[in-house]
């Protein structure tokens, strides 16, 4: 009887031991992180909006690895070591550049600045509170000469995730009077539900007619008290 138990235990431990062989694949441990930049300046995007795409050659079934971006234009992905191709997808506020692949040889944790060509860029943005109003001043620059601007908007929100989707206030600029390359200003009244907060967040977004996403300034925290 005893031997029988022993055999059983031996068999079970063998079974368990063999399992570990199949279950415990190494998790990807290298981090590819970075930012999307234009002329050295990080572009703000919608959280959970635009994506980059990673591809790896050498495997029979090809499918992309989507890399989502934070609202400040940064991204990160856990990967295995290897050769990757990074492409700038459409459905973003910048040119697709599908054939202009960035090659990445990942051997250790890597930080990468991905240059993109946005249709428009926002520079010199300042936000100031005056009384019950937030005044924004900024410059919209045309980067892609064929692009047309559809909307220029000022957003106020109660969290750092403030954009076209998550926002409490949205004010549209008058597009017909917009002059590229020179200062534009927009102002928004702070609504009642935000008045009593300690601080709110403000941001400017610009949408090109051809793009489905906005390019944003970085989120600015404004103290109300």
């Amino acid at each position: 009887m005893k031997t029988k138990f022993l055999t059983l235990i031996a068999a079970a431990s063998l079974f368990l031991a063999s399992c570990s062989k199949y279950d415990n694949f190494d998790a990807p441990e290298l981090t590819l992180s970075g930012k999307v930049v234009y002329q050295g300046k990080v572009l703000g995007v919608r959280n959970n909006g635009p994506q980059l795409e990673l591809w790896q050659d050498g495997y029979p079934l090809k499918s992309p690895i989507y890399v989502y971006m934070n609202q400040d234009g940064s991204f990160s992905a856990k990967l295995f070591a290897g050769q990757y191709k990074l492409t700038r997808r459409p459905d973003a506020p910048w040119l697709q550049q599908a054939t202009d692949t960035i090659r990445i040889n990942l051997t250790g944790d890597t930080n990468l600045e991905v240059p993109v060509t946005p249709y428009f860029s926002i520079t010199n943005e300042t936000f100031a509170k005056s009384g019950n109003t937030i005044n924004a001043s900024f410059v919209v620059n045309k980067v892609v000469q064929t692009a047309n601007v559809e909307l220029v908007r000022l957003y106020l929100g109660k969290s750092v995730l403030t954009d076209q989707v998550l926002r409490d206030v949205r004010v549209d600029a008058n597009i017909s009077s917009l002059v590229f390359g020179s200062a534009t200003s927009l102002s928004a009244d702070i609504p009642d539900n935000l008045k009593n907060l300690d601080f709110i967040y403000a941001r400017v977004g610009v949408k090109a007619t051809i793009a489905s996403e906005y390019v944003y300034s970085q989120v600015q925290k404004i103290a109300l008290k």
Partner: protein
Amino acid sequence: MKKIYIAFALLFGLSMNSCKHDEWLYRESKTTITDEQLWNDPNLITSLLANYYDRLPSLHGVFNTGGMTEIDDAMWSGTRDQNGRNDFQYGNDYGRYWNYGLIRDLNLSLESINALGGKLTPAQKSLFIAEMRFIRAFVYFEMVKRMGGVPLVTKQLIYDFSGDPTPLQIPRAKESEVYDFIYKELEEVKVDLSANNGIATRANRYTALALESRAMLYAASIAKYNSLMAAPITTTGGEVGIPASMATDYYNKSLTASKELIAGPYALYNTNPDKGANFYDMLNKKPVSEVIFAKDFSLGTKVHRFTYDNIIKSMTEDNEASSAISPSLSLVESFNYLDGSKGTLKDKDANGNYIAYTNPADIFANKDGRLFGTVIYPGTTFKNNPVRMQAGVAVYNNGAYQLTTSAVLGGNYTDGQIWTGFDGPKDDAVDVSNTGFYIRKMVSDAPAASTRGTAAVNWWPWFRLGEIYLNAAEAAFELGRPEGLGYVNTIRTRAGFPANSLSTLTNDIIRNERRVELAFEDHRYFDLKRWRIAHLVWDGTETDPNAVVMGLYSYRVVRPGHPDNGKYIFARVRPTRFRRARMFRMANYYSSIAQDVLNNNPKIVRNPFH
């Protein structure tokens, strides 16, 4: 030893002998049907066609409860594991449909019936061929409206083992070419389909016209409204996007088909003087007068569980899940008042104070009859029983109403009267309305229809005359012709509006009519797409009542000594279970093509934004 030789000789002789009876090896199988047998037997072919009809595709249609809760008409209030329907954004592949398996089956059948079906009468043969070509056109329409131009494959693709697969790699046709193909096919087969006239579940002449009417309207509106976008969605090869110059021709084709249908043997169902009940009966009672083409169900053989899924909580005859679809306040408000005013519900007066109603149904009084036929709201009835809907009580306290709800459905408040009704609505609850509304349309009132054992047999309307009237109205309006007004007024009269209730048409009126008339019939997603306003209506804004599914909760007033005591007030709410506003991106106008399709066929062009 000798014996062994003899035995061998005998065996040898036996085997020689048996070889002569080789017909034994060629007997007809009793378990398989050969191609010759199939294509010469009308009964077998009909049975095969039943399979093809059953595979007709839809996105949110054919009682797809989950799909119906993925747009702005409703939210999901069933089991929590499917709450993703309230917390998602349309993915790049949303609505992807690339079914060349079905196309190949149809092409194979068309080739086989021509090659082998010698014993069929010419009339039989031409009818079967026409039906299969209709189904193929239907499938191509489903593909083009979701993917844009797709490869037009009209015969079997057979690999020749030469090592060169390029003859099998067919590029995408232009979007307009696919619509032209659909029109041409339907024009060619509609005469042969006449033999099926009067049958609502197989393609007949009028079914072909109905598909023409819808498909040409889609092509026309894409041609027109895509070009009006600030940046039209196109590809250089025309796989996506139709030139604006083609719009008029498509509108004319749609209008011609619609007019022939309206002049045909169908009539709007209008037998019940109660216009709301009439609208409900129109889909529930299987009237052949209005429904042109339907997917039928029958007790014992083929049933569906739409009623089990969606019946109002207190009337379910089964245990477990019910009430999965909670229609939205924006849908309810899109039903206008019979005096022609906008359908916005009057829950508060100009000063922001609640308006108290004696009966909960009073706030919905004098609305479009289709509201009753589509949605169950507080104070109405279902199966001739009053519904028990009340979100809670509103206690007047220190100059304001405190809205309180009971922890259990059907509980009583301290005054001994109902606190929260057995039918809810209840926020953040499962299998009970989360918006204050239930769906009535297509939820069967037959006995035991909400049980899983019996289930429901009301049919799914692929095409009905009500849609054709609105197709005709839209096409006529876009062409600048006056008759569109009459079509819309006819539809509105059936819904209880006075005759000639409108004197002018606008795009907004036509679009709103489509929303209320065709709610939950798998139209709205595609309508908003072809008008190119989906990204504006469902812009993902968390504060927008169109992108967010809102609810309207009814409360009984507890304010002793005040005239409003015992009356009902209504509060607009955003249900907790609705997590993320509907967000339709430009990339959703055409779904992405699957990576394996792109890998297999290098000639396939990607859709824009993908």
